[in-house]
């Protein structure tokens, strides 16, 4: 077939050109970043990407108003997408490659790819407790953020009146102080001779809390409860805000209408408010669970050697043991599980509420 005719035919569908060039650039960026190519080949890829961009500009210039209008969004997207391809997608690919690589020796800093599935075996067996703890702690923390966050969001949305924005601000403001400092402050608050423990002691609740496994041997700091408490605290706004957004949309008259239709207040709450708040709760759960599952700061500052989470392991393997392959395998497993959760969520709920 005549190539010019082919080009003309493609150019007649500018959205294909735009989409095609964007894909080409993204793949090129990943290829360059993730070292699919190296040496002269990478120069070829770079030239190819340049040609694609020039081709796009050419099509835009030749194609007239309509074509330019069709191509405009792709032009706007390109720089950002290119950046994300290079520094988000390519790294993920590098991570996958690394997770299947093996080290020649202890100080081999550039492990080579060798289908080393053993890294995954190590990640899933040696670090199984950490994975389980991560998801367990993150799950409990998510539940707690719902329990604390829902009443907060509810009161702000329905009882806030004109103070709504101020109350919402109050919820968010503390999270403008440094994450680390907040967590360290919790450490001081929960310390053995700190205020919380002494109040509990004075109230004589130590035994009760110990039997509930919240306190351990008279201490609160460096227990699973402290880690979960820290996670709950640090990610609480991610729950309050989406719930608030979905509650705010509820027309208060709906509740009136339900009560008009002989529903009791609790039934109205259960059948009207809760279902309508569910999208917010789902979005919030995702937004809390994800960072909580990958966190290592809370476990480090508030935990003990038996409360380490997968984040601690990844950090330790990566930044102390220099065991990049195993760290990458753990990262990949974490990413994989969470991505599946996200995809299931977006399939049903879309991407709108996740902002």
């Amino acid at each position, binding site marked *: 077939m005549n190539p010019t005719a082919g080009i003309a035919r493609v150019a007649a569908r500018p959205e294909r050109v735009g989409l095609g060039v964007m894909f080409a650039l993204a793949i090129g960026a990943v290829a360059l970043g993730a070292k699919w190519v190296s040496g002269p080949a990478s120069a070829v890829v770079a030239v190819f990407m340049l040609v694609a961009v020039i081709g796009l500009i050419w099509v835009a210039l030749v194609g007239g108003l309509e074509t330019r209008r069709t191509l405009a969004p792709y032009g*706007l997207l390109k720089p950002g997408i290119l950046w994300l391809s290079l520094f988000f997608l390519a790294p993920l690919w590098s*991570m996958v490659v690394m997770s299947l690589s093996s080290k020649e020796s202890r100080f081999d*800093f*550039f492990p080579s790819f060798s289908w080393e599935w053993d890294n995954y075996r190590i990640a899933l067996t040696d670090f199984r407790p950490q994975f389980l703890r991560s998801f367990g702690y993150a799950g409990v923390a998510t539940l707690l953020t719902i329990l604390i966050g829902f009443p907060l969001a509810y009161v702000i949305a329905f009882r806030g009146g004109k103070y709504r924005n101020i109350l919402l601000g109050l919820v968010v403001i503390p999270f403008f102080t*440094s994450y680390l400092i907040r967590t360290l402050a919790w450490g001081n608050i929960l310390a053995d001779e700190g205020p919380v423990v002494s109040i509990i002691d004075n109230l004589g609740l130590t035994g009760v809390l110990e039997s509930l496994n919240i306190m351990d041997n008279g201490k609160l700091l460096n227990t699973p409860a402290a880690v979960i408490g820290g996670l709950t605290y640090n990610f609480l706004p991610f729950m309050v805000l989406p719930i608030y957004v979905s509650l705010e949309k509820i027309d208060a008259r709906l509740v009136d209408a339900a009560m008009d239709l002989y529903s009791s207040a609790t039934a109205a709450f259960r059948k009207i408010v809760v279902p309508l708040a569910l999208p917010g709760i789902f979005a919030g759960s995702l937004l809390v669970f994800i960072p909580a599952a990958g966190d290592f*700061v809370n476990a480090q500052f508030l935990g003990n050697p038996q409360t380490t989470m997968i984040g601690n392991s990844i950090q330790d393997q990566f930044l102390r043991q220099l065991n990049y392959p195993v760290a990458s395998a753990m990262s990949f497993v974490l990413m994989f599980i969470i991505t599946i959760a996200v995809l299931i969520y977006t399939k049903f709920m879309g991407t709108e509420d996740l902002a």
Partner: protein
Amino acid sequence: MTAFSRRQRFGQRVINGIAGLGLFYIFLPILVIVLFSFNAPKGKFNIKWQGFTLDNWANPFAQEQLTSALWVSLRIALISTFCATILGSLIALALSRYKFKGSGGINLFLVLPLTSPEIVLGSSLATLFINRGVSFGYVTVIIAHIMFQISFVAVTVRARIRGFDWTLEQAAMDLGATPSRAFWKITFPLILPGILAAALLSFALSIDDFIITFFNAGSLVTFPLQIFGASRVAIPPQINVLATMLLIASVSLMVAGTVLGNRRQRKLAGN
């Protein structure tokens, strides 16, 4: 009837009570942080209350390394926020201004960095840099920050300019304005508050980012990394002072933003 309403009022009180406790929970550590910025610790640990002093506030920059770390963070945040705001806003514009093939995929693609655990983002990016033989430092940290800020800005700006009346742009062009004049005179001033809000929030994200930075900083020390380092030795009260200052700064920015936004809204709404 009375029983019913009494139960109802009780239920309301319980909910109010839980909300109040929730607020207390949220503020407790902040109170501690602010309080201990006025502490006069004996020795090097700022843990026990030992007396009120304004010394720490009089010399907030006494800790030279802390101050320089703060500068490093501010500089990184400025550069990365600037770049990410441009890149992210362009994406948001494309997504809200145009209907085009592939926008659904782009939406999902944008959400992914936001829903990936930071430790994965940080370690995978570090893997890339190690593979590619890039030395860690300013450049890598800025690259990393821009990466997670782009998605954030794009999604936030898109949400903020949802409902923007794009016929205004058409109207401007109809009145003889070139596309660029239409953008700078009409669209830009109107979506600027949304962009600024996104930029402010992503600036805050950059300033406070620890996990991703931790993996990609090499021997560069940002403010959170300095705090992390200090936490292994002793947290000087100046950290509380600087944290409180950052808090006050961001709160005033937020309040100013809300007030200005409201006034502007009122102005545009004609009240």
